[in-house]
């Protein structure tokens, strides 16, 4: 069902700089002969064009790198990976040297070692700051290189004064250019990987600096706060805006009732902050740890993920009914998801004319915030002004989202603080807790029950899969398991950048109570084909948007899931550093296996959701109350910077 006819690649990096990967074994014949590469006396035959670095990795030989990143195109600017190549007068950068003929390489001769040491010394000569006062202490690539090469004094000096002011204008990202070593990973992330284009190098030579357009504060440019640059920065030059001091202050204040909601992606990744391998979720250990830290209640964001599915799904049904049955031309289709705050800001800047297509449903974080300060406050008899609502998210854009002025529908700031996985990891360590050793405990029971549908929100395609599980059952009246084994809708899964899936609706059932007030019957959907799209990373979102603009096949879709970060939330900008394609795949595995462990795996079957529609949101999904609390509006920002 997956179509291979995805829009053409519009990446802007010149061909020579595009990501170079070793082709998988089955394609080797088409690439022609392999060439012999001898590294430190060990021989390996690699396809023509393989870099020395990739060949060395195949041999298990470590060459240190700094500017190189598995997600990004080749830059070859830091020179840390220099090696000696027979026949070459000068040292060559292993990351940017393609092997095209039999090549002999030495990776740690005296000349190489000396050059690398000098390069590291030179990087340090321009790197202001003290390691122990840095957010990346002990997780810094420059620091590890200095250690590896035994730097014990500053051969070329060390800056005593900062050169630049720290840019704290953004709610999400803090830029301290004094720590920047000009590796240009953030530039390649912003321009090539995400195609947002906020950061570039300006000026020349020693004056070179990574900057925004006209060196404006980050809050004034088109930054979408995705934080992918933070995740790729080798030093502490880019970091998230850290509110942990405020959260501790709230915990220490006896008058405050501090409530935490945790999202599935950070739970699948936080173990990495405690030395655990990627791909193991610590959901229930985390609950205990959070209570030890002093949080009064711990809830599962999955609950509002389920709620999001109901609201967004209902909105889709309303839109489809209006467009197909009532022939209302003003209805905007396809409907776009609104869970990813990075994507929302992206469309506000770059495609504001398509804002009517974005679902008005809030993201799970903000829905939970609104419910905690209304429904939960009333239920527990707590004054909402004494509730401090904290969200654990894999995301730096969530910090911006919770500070949006329109996100105060409960009468208070719906979510007070957004914490990233890294920041909570730090808080837990600060409390002296060894997370993996914690006993397991469940969520607090007001919103306790969640479904597997909410868990998979963390992976790309997850929102779509949850929505489909729900829609298929509501419309056909049959179990999803009849159509897909284990209710796992595999076509929408995977890491392909853009996916397109068609789902034929062969039979319809009776209209369930939940949406009875909206549509009289399902006959209008009988024989129809539901067309959906999934994409992750804003570069892929751009491809889909351009296709829609050109009237391509995505313009005929009904529902499209957009995620700003590569891999979805599990690859978010607030996740532990490093994040690589392999680590993303491991986290996805953890998320999908957690989904399998749930007994209830469809949002509409969640008993608490059913309860809340009976008790609190009495006029049903997309009704009056839910519109007030669970839906929002967007701002057309445009991309021109005054």
């Amino acid at each position, binding site marked *: 069902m997956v179509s291979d006819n995805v829009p053409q690649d519009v990446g*802007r990096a010149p061909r020579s700089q595009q990501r170079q990967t070793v082709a998988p074994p089955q394609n080797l014949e088409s690439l022609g002969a392999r060439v012999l590469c001898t590294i430190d006396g060990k021989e390996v035959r690699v396809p023509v064009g393989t870099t020395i670095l990739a060949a060395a990795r195949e041999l298990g030989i470590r060459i240190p790198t700094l500017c190189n990143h598995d997600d990004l195109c080749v830059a070859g600017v830091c020179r840390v990976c220099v090696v000696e190549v027979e026949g070459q007068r000068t040292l060559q950068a292993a990351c940017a040297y393609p092997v095209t003929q039999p090549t002999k390489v030495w990776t740690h001769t005296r000349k190489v070692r000396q050059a690398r040491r000098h390069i590291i010394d030179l990087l340090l000569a321009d790197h202001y700051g003290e390691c122990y006062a840095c957010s990346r202490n002990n997780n810094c690539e420059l620091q590890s290189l200095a250690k590896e090469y035994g730097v014990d004094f500053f051969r070329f000096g060390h800056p005593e004064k900062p050169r630049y002011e720290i840019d704290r204008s953004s709610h999400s990202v803090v830029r301290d250019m004094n720590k920047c070593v000009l590796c240009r990973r953030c530039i390649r992330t912003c*321009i090539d990987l995400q195609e*947002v*284009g*906020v*950061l*570039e*190098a*300006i*000026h*020349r030579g020693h004056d070179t600096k990574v*900057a*925004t*357009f*006209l060196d404006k504060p980050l809050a004034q*440019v088109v930054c979408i706060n995705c934080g992918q640059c933070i995740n790729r920065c080798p030093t502490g030059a880019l970091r998230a805006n850290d509110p942990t001091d405020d959260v501790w202050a709230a915990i220490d204040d006896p008058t405050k009732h501090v409530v935490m909601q945790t999202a599935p992606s950070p739970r699948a990744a936080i173990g990495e902050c405690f030395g655990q391998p990627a791909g193991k979720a610590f959901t229930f250990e985390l609950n205990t740890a959070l209570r030890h830290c002093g949080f009064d209640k711990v809830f599962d964001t999955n609950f509002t993920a389920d709620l999001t599915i109901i609201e967004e799904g209902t909105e889709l049904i309303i839109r489809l009914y209006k467009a197909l049955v009532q022939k209302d031309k003003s209805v905007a289709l396809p409907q776009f998801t609104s869970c990813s705050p990075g994507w929302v800001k992206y469309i506000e800047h770059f495609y504001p004319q398509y804002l009517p297509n974005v679902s008005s449903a809030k993201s799970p974080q903000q829905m939970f915030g609104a419910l905690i300060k209304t429904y939960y406050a009333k239920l527990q008899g707590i004054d909402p002004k004494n509730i401090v609502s904290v969200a654990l998210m894999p995301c730096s854009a969530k910090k911006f989202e919770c500070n949006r002025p329109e996100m105060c529908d409960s009468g208070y700031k719906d979510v007070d603080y957004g914490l990233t996985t890294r920041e909570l990891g730090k808080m837990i360590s600060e409390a002296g807790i060894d997370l993996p050793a914690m006993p397991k405990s469940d969520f607090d029971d007001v919103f306790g029950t969640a479904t597997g549908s909410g868990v998979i929100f963390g992976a790309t395609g997850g929102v779509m899969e949850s929505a489909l599980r729900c829609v298929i059952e509501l419309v056909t009246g049959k179990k999803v398991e009849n159509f897909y084994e284990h209710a796992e809708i595999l076509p929408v899964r995977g890491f392909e950048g853009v996916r397109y899936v068609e789902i034929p609706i062969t039979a319809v059932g009776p209209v369930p109570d939940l949406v009875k007030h909206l549509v009289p019957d399902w006959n209008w959907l009988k024989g129809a084909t539901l067309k959906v799209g999934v994409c992750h990373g804003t570069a892929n979102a751009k491809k889909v948007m351009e296709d829609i603009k050109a009237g391509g096949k995505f313009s005929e879709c009904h529902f499209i899931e957009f995620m700003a970060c590569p891999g979805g939330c599990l690859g978010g900008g607030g996740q532990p550093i490093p994040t690589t394609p392999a680590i993303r795949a491991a986290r996805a595995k953890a998320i999908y296996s957690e989904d399998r462990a749930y007994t209830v795996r469809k949002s509409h079957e969640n008993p608490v959701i059913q309860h809340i529609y009976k008790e609190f949101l009495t006029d049903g999904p997309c009704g009056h109350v839910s519109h007030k609390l669970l839906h929002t509006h967007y701002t057309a920002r445009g*991309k*021109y*910077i005054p």
Partner: protein
Amino acid sequence: MLHTEPERLTQEIRSLGERFGKDRAALIPTLQEIQRRYRGISPLAMQIVADMLDIHPVEVDSVVSFYSFLDAKPKGRYVIRLCRTISCDMQGKERVARQLENDLGITFGQTTADGNFTLEWANCLGMCDQGPALLINEKVYTRVTPEAVHGILEECRQAFGLHALQAEQEHAA
């Protein structure tokens, strides 16, 4: 038809697109032409160019800030670039520099209040055998002496005066 300034600029830059093409490779010639016409590339112009070439404004900014002959802030009508490299230095560029500063009443890196002259350093104009050398817009002057500076500046002023007079006459006609 009445146009707002952004509309007029957009139209003008789009017509440059017809001339130089609309891909990345057209960036430098387009910017050079805007620089020639406006003596600088405004933030708005950068964004219009970026839009037309389907690149990001910050990439245009990056190119403009990289090259000495492209400027974000408009320069004087006559940009005087005096060579400061070793050959010209040995042949007395320092005295020429003082004379220029004296005559114009500005220091290097500044523009005169009337917007006529900008004074800048250049790193080697390739006229090492005929130093001291300076460049005024696209014209090279060699073996410049402090005594010659006054005449050179006067030449510029006259050329501009003539130009202004012509424009005025055209306007009147």
